[in-house]
Structure formats: structure tokens, C-alpha cells
């Protein structure tokens, strides 16, 4: 009943949806197989997108023609630009989303994407011919052929849910797990491991007393993720902050002996930076309170997500502890929190295109690679979908550079270093963070999306205009001086030293205290010029002007490292005869097969002196 597809995507979470969309938009015929058509693009954990480093990733996906930004914007119920008080590389967009609308928007966008077919079923076997994947076999016993397969199984592979001493198989609460695939992949020679993650209880908003909590509103002038003209809902909802206390902690401790974490029933490693509440109490015993973010699950629903209270303690303990939190005294629970263990495949088994090294045309994306987070998953899916299409059409592979995107950092980290615990993106993982900003994601990446064919001419034209116009502003700043008498009052007000002679506007902008908006108040010429351009262009000009010297220094380092990054190594390079390499380095290099000297230098266990040995051999 099925034709042969170009690409089959297994799983319809953030990774699967992006993979299906990118491959289909490039022209491949795609079959998206999900266990449940009703839970496409389900936000399994918190109803939010973006945040520090993650917001940058969403912007990057959008800049290249992915859907996550648009879907997030359409379902936004609160927008905040985090870290506005820090430098521009730290500015991170984050939205609170309507969980149901988010999933609906994704489904609608996929339905409207030509070339995407859907099928509700569970894949429990891959069809493999020689060293190449040939399709999938489902639980209904159907074999479907395809030239490439993208696996995005999330937490479903042998998923095991824990609530206190109770445990049951499942990929999410009330959803079945998937079996068979891990076992087959192991037989094919893949190594698998076990990871753990968790989620907090959901509660009834009508049972909370918000007067006992702090309000947290979104930005006055909300921004958005997408560089497109997508309409963002006007209505913004409030979130609240409250805190646990010693009483809450004592109550939770009552359940520790039944905790699957502490009794050793959970074998998988959980994310350190997204710990469960019991873990926080246990590890930071001296802290007498922890922050709780009270987040609405949607525009209309009363359901509330208790962010910061992830737990797998028995449900009665969860309930009892919740009632001790200010504002939660009369809480009614909708769903208990739980922990889930699942299989993952150490991502060092992948190349930089996310294709597996063992089986050709087989791609992995998302939590199956040991990552955590919607954004991390979505970006991998997006890249895997592109590379699957490129591969079966004999087109160039897409390898994102660390110096050009967070996505590049993410994939390079995964396939080069692997990960022991769920991998989450941080800005500090990006050595060239300063260049990888949310404000210039379009400048960095839209040309790549355009070249692939995922972004239309109009969008590229818009980016080029942004570059041109911001340069015009900078040229004006560099060529225009201002008299001390016109500006000294303002400078004094801003707490910076007065001028004794005419000064270029550009030099004034480089002062930390002075903004373009300040300057336009005293320079009519500047004001007239800025009036011609949109906010994003003006902001771009200001960032470029203010931090020019920093960007130049960063680019200098990028340039220094470029030689290493550009020095390619043949994947079949023979390390075995290189006696001066350490044994560990030799083993790792053979396994990872780095594509460049730069990538080789990031493999743990490969020392700088090992690198210099390879360097000499490559000459």
C-alpha cells in the first residue's frame, strides 16, 4: 500500500518534524511515521521555547528556513528577551507557549508542506541491505522502502517511566514505548546507553493563590523568533515566581526511600543542569529555598506547569510537598511528575552530517543522540533532513561550522566528544559566542539556507538590505562629529565624561553608557537617518558599532584557528603507524575519524602534542 519514499522520518517530535519539513521542502518525498497522530510536536516537558543559547538556536533554524521559529511565534503567550542587561551575545529570546496551539501549528504547517505523507504506526525494525538502510518495518508488519531513514525516537526507545516505586513502559506518560529498534541496532554493531530525564507535576491553576507569588510579565515590546513576517498573538499572559522552603524539603525527604533515583532503580544518567527537586535538596543541602516558576500551559487552559519542581517521588509526596509552597496551599494536581529512562546511541557513532558511520543513509537526530531540549532536537532534525536529501541526490553535504552557528557547535560537540549526560546547549560551549548572536542569525545563515533552496530570494534580499542599511548608519557615525555644547549635558546625565572638542559620533557609541537612542536625541541628522530604517537594522548598526573592536579580536582568533579547521584529514587516514601518538589518542582518532585537524584537536584524550604530530604528518 506504500510507494517507495525518498526519506522516512521515524518520530514526529521537534526533531522529526523539522527533518520531515526540511527534506520535503528540498524536494524529497517524505513519510513521517508517528505512533500517534494526535501528539505530533508535543511539548513533552515545559511549554516554552528558547532561552539562553537555545533561543539563538531557534533563530538559526528560522534563518535557514526551518519551522520552529514560526510555530513558536504563532503559539506565543509570553515573550521575553533574556539577559538584556548583558552584552548582545547573551541576549536570548524565550517564549512561553500554548502547548496545544504549538502542536496544532506544527501539524498544520506540515500538512501544508507538499511532499509530506503521514502514517500512524510504530517502527520496530529497519530494513538494511548490506551496509545501507533500505526502509523500515512497522508493528503492523508493513515494510516500507526508502532511500534514507532519519531516526528521531526521543525518549521512546525502551522508555521506562518511574513514579515513586511504580514503574511502567512508556515513551511519555500515557503513551507506549517502542521496542525492537535498539536491539536490532545493537546487533548491527551500534553501542547504546541509557539516559534519564524528568518532568514536574501539572496542576489546576484555579486552585492557586497568585497573590502570594511574584508576577513575571513578558517584555513591553515583545520580539519574536522568526525573521519572517509571521503574525504574533497580541495577548500576553503572566507567569509567577514562588519558592520552596524547609517545610517543603522535609516533606519531600519523606519520600526519598521510595525515590527511584536514590534507591538505584534508575540506571540512566540525568542532566545535571536540569535536576529534579529531590536532587537539588540532596546536593545543595545548605540551600533553604529553591525558585519555582509557575507557568500557564496555554492561553485558555487552566493547566499550570510547575517549572523547577521536576520529580519522580511518589505522587502523594509530590502533592503533600506542593501544598507547602506559598500559593499552592489548596493545589489540585492534574498529572504527577515522573522520571523516564530511555535508550540513546552515543553520538560519536555519527559523522558531522548526522549520518551513522556504520549504516549508510541512516541518520539520527534529537534525544536518540543524547541531547536534551526541544531546540537542540529541532536543529539536529533540520540538519539531518537536509543531509538525508543531499545524500540520496548526490549533492554536497551540509556541515555547519563552529564559528558560524550554535548548530555547528552542537553537532561538532556531539560527534567529536560524545556525551555522558543529556547534552544541553550553553553559550559557553561556543568559543566564538560573540559572533553567534540572535540578532545576526539571518546574516550568518540565511545565505546558506538560500543556497540550499530552503529560503526564497525575497528573504535573502531582506538580509542583504539589513547589512547594507546598517553599514550606511555606521558610515554616518564614523563621518559625523558633534560639538561639545550639544552633547555634554546628555553625557553628564549618562555618567560619562564630557567632551572638550568635537567628537565623532562613532567614538561616543563605543562608550558603554551611550546608546544610539541617546544620540539621536541630540543629533537631528542621525535621527533623520535612523527614521528611515526598521528597529532590527538600527539595532544591528548599534551592536556592530559598539562592539566592533571586540568582534575584530574574535575574528582574529577565528582566523588563527581557521588553518586548523580548514586542514582536512582523509577519513581513512592511517593513525596506526604513528608511534608518537598516545595510545588513547590513536584509538579515539580511529573511532571518531575527524574530518579536520580542528575537529581532531577537540577529541578528549587527544593532546596538543598529538595534534602537532598529525600536523607534521599532514605536511
Amino acid at each position, binding site marked *: 500500500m506504500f510507494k517507495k519514499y525518498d526519506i522516512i522520518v521515524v518520530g514526529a517530535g521537534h526533531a522529526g518534524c523539522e527533518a520531515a519539513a526540511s527534506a520535503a521542502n528540498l524536494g524529497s518525498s517524505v513519510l513521517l511515521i508517528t505512533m500517534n497522530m494526535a501528539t505530533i510536536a508535543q511539548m513533552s516537558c515545559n511549554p516554552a521555547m528558547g*532561552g*539562553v*543559547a537555545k533561543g539563538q538556536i531557534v533563530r538559526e533554524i528560522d534563518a535557514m528556513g526551518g519551522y520552529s521559529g514560526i510555530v513558536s511565534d504563532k503559539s506565543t503567550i509570553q515573550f521575553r528577551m*533574556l*539577559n538584556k*542587561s*548583558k*552584552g548582545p*551575545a*547573551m541576549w536570548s529570546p524565550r517564549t512561553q507557549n500554548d502547548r496545544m496551539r504549538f502542536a496544532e501549528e506544527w501539524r498544520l504547517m506540515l500538512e501544508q508542506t507538499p511532499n509530506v505523507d503521514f502514517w500512524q504506526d510504530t517502527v520496530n525494525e529497519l530494513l538494511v541491505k548490506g551496509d545501507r538502510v533500505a526502509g523500515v518495518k512497522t508493528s503492523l508488519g508493513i515494510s516500507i522502502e526508502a532511500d534514507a531513514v532519519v531516526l528521531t525516537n526521543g525518549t521512546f526507545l525502551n522508555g521506562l517511566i518511574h513514579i515513586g516505586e511504580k514503574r511502567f513502559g512508556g515513551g511519555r506518560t500515557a503513551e507506549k514505548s517502542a521496542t525492537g529498534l535498539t536491539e536490532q541496532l545493537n546487533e548491527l554493531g551500534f553501542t547504546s546507553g541509557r539516559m534519564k530525564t524528568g518532568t514536574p507535576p501539572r496542576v489546576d491553576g484555579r486552585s492557586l493563590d497568585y497573590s502570594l507569588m511574584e508576577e513575571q510579565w513578558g517584555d513591553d515590546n515583545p520580539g519574536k523568533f522568526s525573521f519572517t513576517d509571521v503574525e504574533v498573538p497580541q495577548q500576553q499572559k503572566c507567569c509567577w515566581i514562588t519558592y520552596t522552603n524547609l517545610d517543603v524539603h522535609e516533606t519531600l525527604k519523606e519520600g526519598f526511600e521510595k525515590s527511584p533515583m536514590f534507591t538505584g532503580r534508575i540506571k540512566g544518567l540525568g542532566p545535571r*543542569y536540569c535536576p529534579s527537586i529531590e536532587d537539588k535538596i540532596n546536593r545543595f543541602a545548605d540551600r533553604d529555598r529553591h*525558585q519555582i516558576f509557575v507557568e500557564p500551559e496555554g492561553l485558555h487552559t487552566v493547566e499550570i506547569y510547575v517549572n523547577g519542581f521536576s520529580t519522580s517521588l511518589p505522587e502523594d509526596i509530590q502533592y503533600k510537598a506542593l501544598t507547602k509552597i506559598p500559593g499552592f496551599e489548596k493545589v489540585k494536581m492534574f498529572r504527577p511528575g515522573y522520571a523516564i529512562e530511555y535508550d540513546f546511541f552515543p553520538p560519536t557513532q555519527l559523522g558531522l552530517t548526522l549520518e551513522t558511520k556504520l549504516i549508510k543513509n541512516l541518520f539520527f537526530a534529537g534525544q536518540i543522540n543524547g541531547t536534551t531540549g526541544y531546540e537542540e532536537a529541532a536543529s539536529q532534525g533540520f540538519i539531518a533532513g537536509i543531509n538525508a536529501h543531499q545524500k540520496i541526490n548526490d549533492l554536497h553535504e551540509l556541515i555547519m561550522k563552529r564559528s558560524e552557528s550554535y548548530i555547528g557547535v552542537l553537532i561538532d560537540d556531539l560527534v567529536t566528544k560524545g556525551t555522558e549526560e543529556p547534552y544541553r546547549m*550553553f*553559550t*559557553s560551549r561556543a*568559543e566564538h*559566542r*560573540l559572533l553567534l548572536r540572535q540578532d545576526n542569525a539571518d546574516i550568518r545563515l540565511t545565505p546558506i539556507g538560500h543556497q540550499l533552496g530552503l529560503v526564497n530570494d525575497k528573504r535573502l534580499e531582506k538580509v542583504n538590505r539589513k547589512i547594507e542599511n546598517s553599514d550606511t548608519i555606521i558610515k554616518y557615525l564614523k563621518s559625523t562629529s558633534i560639538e561639545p555644547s550639544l552633547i555634554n549635558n546628555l553625557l553628564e546625565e549618562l555618567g560619562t565624561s564630557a567632551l572638550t572638542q568635537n567628537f565623532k559620533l562613532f567614538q561616543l557609541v563605543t562608550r*558603554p*553608557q551611550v546608546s544610539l537612542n541617546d544620540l539621536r536625541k541630540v543629533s537631528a541628522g542621525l535621527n533623520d537617518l535612523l527614521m528611515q530604517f526598521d528597529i532590527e537594522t538600527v539595532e544591528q548598526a548599534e551592536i556592530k558599532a559598539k*562592539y566592533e573592536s*571586540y568582534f575584530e*579580536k*574574535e575574528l582574529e*582568533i577565528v582566523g*588563527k584557528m581557521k*588553518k*586548523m579547521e580548514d586542514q582536512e584529514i582523509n577519513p581513512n587516514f592511517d593513525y596506526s603507524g*604513528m*608511534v*608518537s601518538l598516545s595510545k588513547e589518542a590513536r584509538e579515539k582518532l580511529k573511532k571518531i575519524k575527524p574530518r579536520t585537524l580542528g575537529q581532531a*584537536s577537540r577529541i578528549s584524550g587527544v593532546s*596538543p*602534542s598529538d*595534534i*602537532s*604530530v598529525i*600536523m*607534521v*604528518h599532514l*605536511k
Partner: protein
Amino acid sequence: MTNNDTIVALATPSGIGAIGVIRLSGPDALTICNTVFKGRDLSVQASHTIHFGTIRDGEVILDEVLVSLFIAPHSYTKENVVEISTHGSAYIIESIIKLFIRTGARAAKPGEFTLRAFLNGGMDLSQAEAVADLIASNSASSHLVAMQQMRGGFSSELKGLREQLIHFASMIELELDFGEEDVEFANRDQLRSLTLAIHAVLYRLISSFEQGNVMKNGVPVVIAGKPNVGKSTLLNALLNEERAIVSEFAGTTRDTIEDEMSINGVVFRFIDTAGIRETADVIEAQGVLRTREKMKQARLILYLFDSEQGIEEIEEQLAELALLGIPIVGIVNKSDLLAPAVMEVLKGLELIFISARDKVGIEELKVEVLRKVNLHRINNDDVIVSNIRHVEALKKTEEALDRVLYGLDNPVTSDFLAMDIKQALYYLGEITGAVTTDDLLENIFSKFCIGK
């Protein structure tokens, strides 16, 4: 790059010497040598043994030689190495090397023996770099600098500071990535103290470079004075050989002549110059210009007067020279011709009295030269930076730390602070070896002379 071949080169300096040592390295070193060596069968001898015999090209005996064997991996290159000590005739050496090449060896490229030592795990890069310096060292003090670097030198000191800085970098990163949550912030006062402490170390290291450079290249000393005052004669007296052209006519030395000598283990580079006087001769005018340039580069000026110059003229000249800001030793030559009364007056001016021609007062002058240069003797523990690559990295680090300090005193956000710290870490890493760059390799292996 393969190490399957056997390389050959002269390991001692070319030129005439009592002996020359030819080195063969590679899997076939023994076989190649054995083919042309008449004596014991080298293939069955133990490592680290020496054998007497002759090298023959067919029936022709090229030389009587001593052959030292080093069997892999117990050699400098970790390969089979044979060293042949020959008599130091250029003809013999050339003939033997040609013979080895005909027998299957290949002429070594510059630095190739050390490159092989490195590739075969015999040494790491920083050691290789130090070897290059060690080979080039020509005095006790430059040797000390190179040895010190080979043992790890100042990079171990920097390693410790770098680790402390890494700690702050990670604290600031934590702040940045978890700003939404209540996390502990990096202590800015401690960061400032650490930055200042590193700054002080950098300053010391960078200023030691000049001294280190002097150790390596010699202290530049200019001999200057009016024409025909005896500058070349003094130089010859110091060097104890006829080097500069000496004549009775003023203005014979038209160019600068350099020569080196060691006084108490410190190398001095003496620069003889054309006399300073107003001149109409074009060629000589250029020489005078060059002299003034040279004087500016010198660390010490030996300024010669002669007995015919009046006291006022000498005082005037000394005052003018003092403006250069370079230590000066005023010397009165031909002092044997001085009238005792004049001598009395001049003695008040801290001058050295010599007769260059008769080599009188030369030892006294040497003592004064050492005193004026004031090179405190380098101890084993002194840290000296002698490598230009290191100095550049130190200066880059210093710049980055200056920005950190500026950032701490101004409303610069912590992400930029983090970037400046990271840049400092990057450049410190270039020195300590935590960061590898292509430049390092270029720098090292281009320095070696053939055969070393």
C-alpha cells in the same frame, strides 16, 4: 611523510676542523655503513659501541674512521643511527657523504634529524624548539637560557596562573548561562588581584626578553670617535687579531665591521665604525650616517678620544653623547703621549686610559665594559624569555588583561569580560602548549641547520 628512508648529513660545522662527524639515521643506516666500512661486521655489534676501520670507495681508502653505533630505539632519532668520525678535511667528508648517498642514503633536510626525533616520540615540540636554541647557543649564558627552556622554564609558572584564570572564566560562564537562576557570582575583587598578579609576571617576562636576546645574540657595543683616533686598532686589541683595516690615514674604515668576543661568558658584539666628522666625501658620509644609526642600537658605546683633544672638547662630546641615553665608556687612547699635568685633569672625568697599539689598559677596559653593561649574572633560577614567538604571545596576553582591568573599572558586561579572559587564556596557552598552532611548527623546524 614517511620515515622509511635513511638520511645522512654532516653533524659538525662545515669548515676545517680536527674531526668531522657524519651522521646516518634510518632503518638502513647500519647496512649502508657496513657496505663501505672495512673492519668488524657492524650488523652484529651491540648498540653504543665504537669501531675502528676504514671507509672505502671500491679499492680506494677514503679515510680511517671511528664508527659509533646506536641501535633503534636507543638513539637521538629513535632510529638506527651510525655516527662516523672522520678527519676534518672537507674533501674527505664530502666524498664519504657522496658515497653514502650512492649506497642508498638521502641527504637530510634542515632539521630532519630533530624532526624524526619528534615524530618518533623522542621529544615534544617545546623541547624541539629548545634544542634549536641550544644548538645555536654560543656562550655560557645563552646556553643557560636554552637549557632552562628545555626543562620547562617559565611555562610551568604560567601554567599555574593560567589555571587560576580558567577558574574565573568558568565562574563567569556559569553566571552568564544561569543568569536566570540564583547562582554564585565570580568575585570581581579576586579577579582583579589575579589579573594584576599575572600582569606583573608578564611584565617581568617581557622585559627579560631584551636581556634574553642579548644573551643569545651578544651585547652590541659600538666603538666610536673621531677619525684616526684608533678605533680599529682598539678593536683589534680587543679581538687580538688583525681584523679591521688599520692605516695611518684618517677615514680608512668606511663601513661598520662586527665581531664577537666573550668576556666572562658574556658575548659582546663589537661594532667598529667610521669616524664621526663632517665630511664632503659621499661614501664616507654614508658611513657616518650608519655610525649614528648603529650608536642608537648599541647597549654600550666605547667613545675614543686621543691625547690631542682638549679637555673642553672632551667634556662637550661626553655631554652630547649622554643625550643618547646609552651607557658610555670614555676612553683616552694614545695615553702614553699625554703630558702628566693633562692626565691629572682628565682623571677627574672617569675615563679609561689605554694605548691600543701597545695593548696597554685593555684588561682594565674589559672590566669596565662588563661593569657598565651591568648584566647581572644569570642564575639557574632566573626566568628569561628568549623566544620571539613567546614574547608575542606574552604581549597579546598583556593586552587582553589590560582590557579585563578596563572592563572591571567600567560598565562593561561580563560576557565581554569573559571574552577578554578567554583571549588571554588562548595566548597563554600558545606558550604553555595548551594551544597548538601551525606557526609553532614553522618556527621550530625552520631554525635547524642541516644535520642537527
